């Protein structure tokens, strides 16, 4: 292998990165309520208990609704910002775009408490909508980061050609630009969906009577006998997010290839 000691270090580092994730299926299929080695036997009991927990199913449903709504909202906002940034020059461009990206560098607990203060101050009640508002705020910068590269790789003369050939601005955007940035849009939707689905602290502060999945899990972690079921659920979630990310990566690469750019790798 190339790289000598560096390659050895890289493999060890990957082992460190994957250590917790490898343990997950081990304990999910282990026939014991105690999460420790040695493993005692194989069982699928924890998986079959999953559908019999109504609170869990309700929290999965809440999380899915929140994540889908967040993904759509933050991608739409992201398209506006990324296109404005790539296509137009306007006064205050840098400070405005920088301000929109600000949630990326704020500790999430600050975002959570500041939204809580305002929502309670206005006398609004906490619900899935308040979580969606918070999640859209933190997901939009990620959407912008992904869509920026999609819009920046775009050749502006394609759209100009469409306008010259008699299309209106909107229809040239819809017919020329949109299909070209579609892969970026899809990966933005998937990333925002994944972030929202996993986000804990904002949901913890802003959730109403229907907990999201991470908030429900947080409650379960206090009861040792519930933990194997949590492990089973975690295994399913890991499998699903790896699947989603592979799809997202596939679309991102296709997008880069379609726009004629060179692949530089990675979402961030």
């Amino acid at each position: 292998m190339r790289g000598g000691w560096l390659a050895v270090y890289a493999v060890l580092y990957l082992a460190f990165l994957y250590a917790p994730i490898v343990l997950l299926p081990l304990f999910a299929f282990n026939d014991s309520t105690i999460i420790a080695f040695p493993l005692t036997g194989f069982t699928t009991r924890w998986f079959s208990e999953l559908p019999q927990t109504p609170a869990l199913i309700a929290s999965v449903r809440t999380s899915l609704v929140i994540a889908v709504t967040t993904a759509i909202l933050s991608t739409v906002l992201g398209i506006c910002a990324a296109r404005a940034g790539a296509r137009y020059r306007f006064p205050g461009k840098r400070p405005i775009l920088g301000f929109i990206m600000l949630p990326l560098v704020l500790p999430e607990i600050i975002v959570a408490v500041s939204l809580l203060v305002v929502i309670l101050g206005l006398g609004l009640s906490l619900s899935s909508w308040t979580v969606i508002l918070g999640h859209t705020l933190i997901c939009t910068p990620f959407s912008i980061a992904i869509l920026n590269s999609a819009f920046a790789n775009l050749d502006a003369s394609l759209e100009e050609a469409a306008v010259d050939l008699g299309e209106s601005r909107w229809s040239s955007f819809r017919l020329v630009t949109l299909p070209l940035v579609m892969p970026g849009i899809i990966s933005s939707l998937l990333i925002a969906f994944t972030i929202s689905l996993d986000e804990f602290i904002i949901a913890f502060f802003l959730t109403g009577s229907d907990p999201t999945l991470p908030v429900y899990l947080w409650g379960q972690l206090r009861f040792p006998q519930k933990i194997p079921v949590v492990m089973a659920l975690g295994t399913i979630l890991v499998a699903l997010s790896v699947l989603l990310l592979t799809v997202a990566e596939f679309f991102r690469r296709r997008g880069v290839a379609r726009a004629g750019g060179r692949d530089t790798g990675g979402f961030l």
Partner: protein
Amino acid sequence: MPERFWRGEAGRGLALVAPPALYALVLLAVPLAAVLAFSFWSQDGLVIDRTPTIANYREAVTEPLYRQLMLRSVGIAAAVTAATVLLAYPIAYFVSFVVRPERKALWIFLITIPFWTSYLIRVFLWKVILGYNGVLNTTLQGLGVIDAPLTFILYNANAVVITLAHAYAPFAILPVFVALEKIDRSLIEAARDLGETRLTTFLRVTLPLSVPGVVAAVLIVFIPTIGDYVTPRLVGGPGGLMIANMIQTQFLKLSNAPMGAALSVLAMLTVGAVALVFVGLMRRWLKVRQ
């Protein structure tokens, strides 16, 4: 505003950027201003007293518990940042300089995958790994490396550092990787041709050129870790709690929103101050070198 303006480039750009900008204004700027206002108020039971006071800040600065939590948060975040960036640099270097170009995307993909899986469950699994009867202790005992389980790795600040160094690994690797990728390879060849060794080439060419990536990595790791809530709560024990845990307690348990707001403002100021000082020092260092 004349109609012509809105048809021009600037107008179209502003109209397009307006929805996300207004969203951030209403849901970020206004709430942050509200927190700032709250931090100067006081609360008695459920009643908020809006007479401006600096009592919250005075208490936050003088009360030993708050001061200790704030200092510990900065200390832990600094330790996490140092550990994460130092461990990540060789990986970024490996992927950028050793891995063949067509396999780079695969490596980056491999590095990012673990981090899109449930954060809560990952932190919990570190508790399983580091625990008294945990994976690490049973493995080391089984191998005969240690006789008694290690106890200094769970329910203290060390556990928080290990867990967060894992959680923020890709946020450190990616910026450094991007900076290394931008380095013109002919500069390195030139240095070697001029008689530098591999090590001095790295120290005098590669490392200084990758500093912007390192600075970005440090900020990206430091800022969110200082406000982390889950990790200190799950693996920190009483000695590993951080400022976010106290902010949560003030808001949700003690119903003392003004005190929580004051602590939030102080946490933001601390983050901002540390970040500015760090960026300033790096700028100065780079200038001296040039």
